[in-house]
C-alpha cells in the first residue's frame, strides 16, 4: 500500500499516532485532576466535609475508594460511551450543561477565522510582493507590537474605547448576536493576525526569490498571472501549517477572550469549572479541547503532504 498510495499510508500512520497521543493525554488529564491532593468529595461538600459519614458516603458514590487504575478505566469507559459524567457544581450531566456552550464557541471561532484567514492572506501577499515597501514596513512594525500584546489587554482597551467612551458596542457579550460578536472577534483577529501575516509574507518572499518565478518572469509571464499561478499556489503550502497553528492558538485565545467579554462558550465554562474545582467538567472539556487540537495537527500534516508532492518521499 505504501508504494501505491503514499499519502494514504502516511495518513493512516499519522492517525494511529494521533490515537495513541489522545490516550496518553487522557491519562495525563485524569491523573492531574483526579489524583492530585484536594479530594473532590471535600470540594463538593465544602464546609459540610466535617461530617465524616457524609464524606465517606460521597467518596463511595464517586468511586474514590477504588484504586486509581480502576477509577481511570471506569472514567475512560463511560467517556467512550458518550457519558461525560455529572457536574459537581450544577448537579446536571456535563453534556447538557455544555451543549449550547460548544455551539457558541464554534460561532465565535468560525467568524474569527472567516475574517482572519482571508485578511492575512491578502495582507501577507501584498507585503511579500512589495518587500520593503510602505505597507511591508508598516505591517512589520505593527505586528511586532500586536504579537506581544495579551488578548485580555487588547480586549480591555477595546472595551474602554468602544463600550465605555464611545458607547457604541456592548462591553459584555452574553450571547452570539451580531453586536455582541464585534469586540470579541476584533480582539482575537488583532491578536492572531500579526503572526499569520508574518508567516504568509515569509512564504511569498521565499517563492518570489525562487528560480522558477525568475524564469517565468524572464519568459514574459504577466505580473498578475505570475502571482496567481506561480506565487500564491506555492506559498499556500506553508500557510496550511500556519492556519492549523492559528486554530490551535484559538483554543487558548478563546478561553481568555470569552472570560473578558463574559461570552457563554466552552472557554468560560472551563475557567469556571477550574475555579469551582468541578472536576468532571474540567475532564470533559479538557478531553474535547485536546482531541480537537490533535485532530487539527493530524489534518494539517496530511494536508501538507497532499499539497506538496515532494514531502511524500521524505516522510512517507
Amino acid at each position, binding site marked *: 500500500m505504501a508504494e501505491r498510495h503514499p499519502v494514504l499510508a502516511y495518513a493512516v500512520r499519522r492517525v494511529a499516532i494521533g490515537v495513541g497521543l489522545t490516550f496518553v493525554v487522557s491519562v495525563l488529564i485524569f491523573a492531574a485532576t483526579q489524583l492530585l491532593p484536594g479530594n473532590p468529595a471535600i470540594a463538593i461538600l465544602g464546609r459540610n466535609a466535617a461530617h465524616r459519614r457524609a464524606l465517606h458516603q460521597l467518596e463511595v458514590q464517586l468511586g474514590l475508594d477504588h484504586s486509581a487504575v480502576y477509577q481511570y478505566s471506569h472514567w475512560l469507559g463511560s467517556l467512550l460511551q458518550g457519558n461525560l459524567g455529572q457536574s459537581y457544581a450544577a448537579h446536571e450531566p456535563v453534556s447538557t450543561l455544555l451543549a449550547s456552550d460548544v455551539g457558541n464557541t464554534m460561532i465565535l471561532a468560525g467568524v474569527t477565522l472567516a475574517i482572519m484567514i482571508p485578511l492575512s492572506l491578502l495582507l501577507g501577499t501584498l507585503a511579500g510582493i512589495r518587500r520593503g515597501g510602505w505597507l511591508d514596513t508598516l505591517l512589520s512594525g505593527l505586528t511586532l507590537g500586536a504579537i506581544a500584546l495579551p488578548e*485580555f489587554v487588547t480586549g480591555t482597551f477595546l*472595551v474602554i474605547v468602544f463600550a465605555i467612551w464611545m458607547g457604541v458596542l456592548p462591553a459584555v457579550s452574553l450571547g452570539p448576536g451580531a453586536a455582541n460578536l464585534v469586540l470579541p472577534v476584533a480582539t482575537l483577529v488583532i491578536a492572531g493576525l500579526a503572526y499569520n501575516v508574518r508567516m504568509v509574507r515569509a512564504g511569498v518572499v521565499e517563492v518570489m526569490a525562487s528560480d522558477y518565478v525568475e524564469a517565468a518572469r524572464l519568459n514574459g509571464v504577466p505580473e498578475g498571472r505570475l502571482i496567481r499561478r506561480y506565487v500564491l499556489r506555492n506559498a499556500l503550502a506553508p500557510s496550511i501549517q500556519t492556519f492549523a497553528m492559528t486554530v490551535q492558538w484559538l483554543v487558548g485565545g478563546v*478561553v481568555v477572550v470569552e472570560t473578558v467579554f463574559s461570552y457563554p462558550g466552552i472557554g468560560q465554562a472551563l475557567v469556571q469549572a477550574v475555579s469551582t*474545582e468541578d472536576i468532571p467538567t474540567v475532564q470533559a472539556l479538557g478531553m474535547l*479541547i485536546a482531541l480537537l*487540537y490533535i485532530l487539527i495537527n493530524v489534518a494539517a500534516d496530511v494536508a501538507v503532504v497532499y499539497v506538496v508532492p515532494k514531502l511524500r518521499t521524505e516522510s512517507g
Partner: protein
Amino acid sequence: MTTLVLREARATLPARRRRTGLTVSEWVATSLLCLVLGIAVFGPWLSPENPDALVGVPYSGPSRTHLLGLDELGRDVLSRVMAGGRAVVLLASVATCAAYIVGGVAGLVSGYVRSWIDPVIMRVIDVVLAFPPILFLLVVATGAPHSQMGLAVALTIVQAPGVARILRTATLEASTRGYVEAAAARGESPWYILLREIVPNIRGVIVADAGPRFTVSILAVAALNFLGLGQRPPAANWALMINENQGGLTANPWAVLAPAIMIAVLTISLNVVADGVNRRRDVAV
C-alpha cells in the same frame, strides 16, 4: 561608489553610536523595558501607600493624594500598580530559567550522546507538545489551586520541550565540528565537552531564543492571573487588577487602564528588544 560614500559616512559617526547603533524604536523600547522592570522589582518598596490598605470610597477618580484614583475596594491604584508587577515578572523568570535547565540538559544530552536516550527524549517532547499549553496550565491549576509552585512547574513543562528541540539541533550541528573531535581525542569527559566546548559555541542560539521565550512566559503568567487562577485576590497583581476592576470602568478607568498599560509596555518592549538583538546577531530560529 555608494559603498564608499557609506563607509566614509559611517567612519565619521561618533565611536559610541557606531558600536551600539540602536534605532530610535529600539532605544525607546530598551528604556521602557528598563523602566517597567524597575517598577516591577523595586516598586513594592517605593509605593506611596500600603497597597492593601482601604483609604477611601471605591472607584474614586484621580486626585492629588491618589494620582490614579482608587480601586473596587477603595485601595490606592498607584500603590497597587507599583506592587503588582513583581509576582508576574518573578514567576515568568523562574519558569523560563527552569525551562532552560530542564530543556537545556535534555537537548544537550539528546543531541550529543544520542544512543537510546535521543529517541526517548524526542518522543516525550512530542507528547508534551500534543497538549494545548493553556489546557495544561488550567488542568494543573485545578489540581493545585492558586499554587505559585504548581504554576511554575507547569509553565516549565510547557516551555522545556521547545528549549530542548532548539538546543538539540544546535548541539547536533556543533558536535560535528573539529574542536569537539579534538576534545574527544584529548580524552575529555562528555560533560566537559558539553559544558566547555559545545555550550559556549551555541550561546548565540540560546540568546536568540531566550527573549521570545521570556515574553511567552510573561503572557502565560499574566493570562492565568487574569483568569483568577494565579495569585489569590487580596494580592496586588497587574493581570488580576484588570479583572477585578472591570466593574468600575466608567467611574475610574485608571484602575484597569494603568495595569493594562504596564503589561502592554512590558511585553511589547520586550519583543522589540529581543527582535533587535536577533536581527543584530542575524540568527534565524
